[in-house]
């Protein structure tokens, strides 16, 4: 089926004076794992609720799996799965009982199907355990199991692995990729940048607006249009911000020795090519625009009297992208 899985066109939702989702448009293709990244309150959940037909848009429209979300909401929901470990599980019931309950809700009565799902998510031997006795990692597996029991074509995953052990998270994502290989499409909402890195394409939400949507690599390449830099100022790696040498007793450090990084930071702040610069532990991290080379930054620092700096190009992160987009929005105001 070549038809798009989700087509959202200028989706908008207002609550009184407040615009929660502001003319959001995007498309999701079959077999994609799409991330929807934004802080709490940016409009992610409201968007999903509209896509599931749980909330009527104030403006705009959406078509999910070929069905209009307002007029054919039931068909959308019958073919979609929603995973949210925070709200979906009955703590006093066992793993098996929870799954049987959800299967029943979707009209799936086959015991065989329940066994199949338990096996797929790795919970076969834990099916008799009460949810209240399970760790976060296992609960997460059950939550996804409950979301796929009716074989949905589209999966919505809400903050699927926040706070979970990195190993459990990797195993979870392997499971998602397997489901996608098997024909499903997934949309993940998260506020956690690292989570978004698992997605094929990421949409960045802030204050109800979709600021950008592309692969993580393309977002980094295009939004930042430059590189990220780690800036070390001599001596800054040795001590804690060059503050105190705790091995030397009784030697008072004068305030001038303190924070060579802070002065470097101030200098970078005046450089027009630097979009953003901040402290990062024992060094600085700067995002620059255009065709900036390391020497430009070094020259700026030298001109201000900081001659012992070292500059290294580093991988930008999605957080850098987010901050750059947020800054652009601010400057455009």
């Amino acid at each position: 089926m070549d038809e798009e899985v989700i087509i959202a066109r200028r989706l908008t939702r207002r609550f009184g004076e407040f615009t929660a989702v502001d003319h959001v448009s995007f498309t999701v293709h079959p077999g994609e794992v799409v991330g929807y990244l934004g802080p709490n309150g940016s409009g992610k959940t409201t968007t999903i609720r509209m896509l599931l037909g749980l909330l009527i848009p104030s403006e705009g429209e959406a078509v999910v799996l070929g069905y209009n979300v307002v007029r054919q909401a039931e068909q959308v929901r019958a073919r979609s799965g929603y995973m949210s470990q925070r709200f979906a599980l009955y703590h006093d019931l066992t793993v098996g009982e929870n799954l049987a309950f959800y299967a029943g809700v979707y009209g799936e009565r086959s015991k065989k199907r329940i066994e199949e799902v338990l096996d797929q998510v790795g919970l076969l031997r834990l099916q008799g355990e009460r949810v209240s006795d399970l760790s976060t990692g296992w609960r997460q597996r059950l939550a996804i199991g409950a979301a796929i029991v009716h074989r949905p074509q589209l999966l919505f995953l809400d903050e699927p692995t926040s706070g979970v052990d990195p190993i459990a998270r990797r195993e979870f994502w392997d499971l998602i990729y397997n489901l996608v290989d098997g024909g499903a499409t997934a949309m993940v909402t998260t506020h956690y940048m690292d989570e978004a890195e698992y997605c094929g394409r990421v949409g960045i939400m802030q204050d109800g607006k979709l600021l950008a949507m592309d692969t993580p690599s393309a977002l980094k390449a295009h939004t930042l249009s430059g590189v990220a830099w780690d800036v070390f100022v001599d001596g800054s790696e040795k001590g804690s911000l060059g503050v105190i040498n705790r091995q030397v007793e009784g030697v008072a450090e004068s305030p001038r020795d303190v924070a060579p990084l802070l002065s470097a930071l101030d200098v970078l702040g005046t450089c027009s090519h630097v979009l953003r610069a901040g402290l990062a532990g024992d060094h600085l991290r700067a995002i620059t625009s255009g065709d900036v080379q390391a020497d430009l930054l070094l020259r700026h620092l030298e001109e201000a009297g900081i001659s012992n700096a070292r500059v290294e190009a580093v991988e930008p992160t999605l957080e850098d992208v987010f901050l750059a987009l947020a800054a652009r929005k601010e400057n455009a105001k």
Partner: protein
Amino acid sequence: MGVLIEAKNLVKSFGGTKAVDGLSLAIAEGEIYGVVGPDGAGKTTTLRLLCGVLEPDHGGGENGASIHICGFDLTRQAELARAQIGYLPQRFSLYEDLTVMENLRFLAEARGLPWRSWGPRCKEILEFVGLDKFTTRLAGHLSGGMKQKLGLAAALVHRPRVLLLDEPTTGVDPVTRQDFWQLILRLVGVIDQEGSGVAVLVSTPYMDEASRCTRVGFMRNGKLLVEGRSADLRGRLAGSILELRGSPLAALRKIATTMEGIEDAQMFGDRIHLHISPKRREEVEARIRGEAARQGAEIADLRPITPLFEDVFISLVEK
């Protein structure tokens, strides 16, 4: 005597479960120490032990638990120790019906700040966190990020030398997260007139926040797996992670997961991270290119990248 937080052999059980299992720490002035670990690792319990809200299981004796804050024994010199601690819990309370300044004044007075000094001190700390223009706003009308900053101001109002922050940036937007970290970093960079600096301990479930700390301890199941400076920890895995991009991705993934010499292959959306032994890098790269060509797959990029902290954590756990 630069060590401001010193904990030895901390153990804390709840019922049959050991939330903290033999943890020791020493954090000096000017350090930002990050306790990084998933939910349930024991981070919050550790912080509660360090601020004296909970008592550790064993007390006294040579191998018993002990906690010293700025040299004061937390059990036997509780008042003196606690006066040095600023604590920002995960869920902190503000009085929603009081203004920013009223909240801070209340907390300053509760901390025993004499009436002559709370005024200037409150103004000073609000300026530091960037809330000086919002002194008359009701706390209930503050954004999430601003509440966070007020919480921080409250924890700092009595000039503690030790700052304990429990997951301060969980769920917070990136701009606020960035601002918050800048404040913390500036804080430890400052030495006051008496030559005293501050030590900060931050707990976080976000692996990437490890890079913002001067030293990091990975915590899991109540234990500290390893600690060290971020750069050193990442350096341990230097050269062992390759990033592979190209198409079709499914074919490349198959090659990566079945090829000998690749210890692990993790898919990340539009690319694959390969764990290899640094010594075999060239050999593995050549074989991947060869196999890809044989299968008609195109490689857009194949090169070593800086390991994520998540990779470091996983390699530690799987040892």
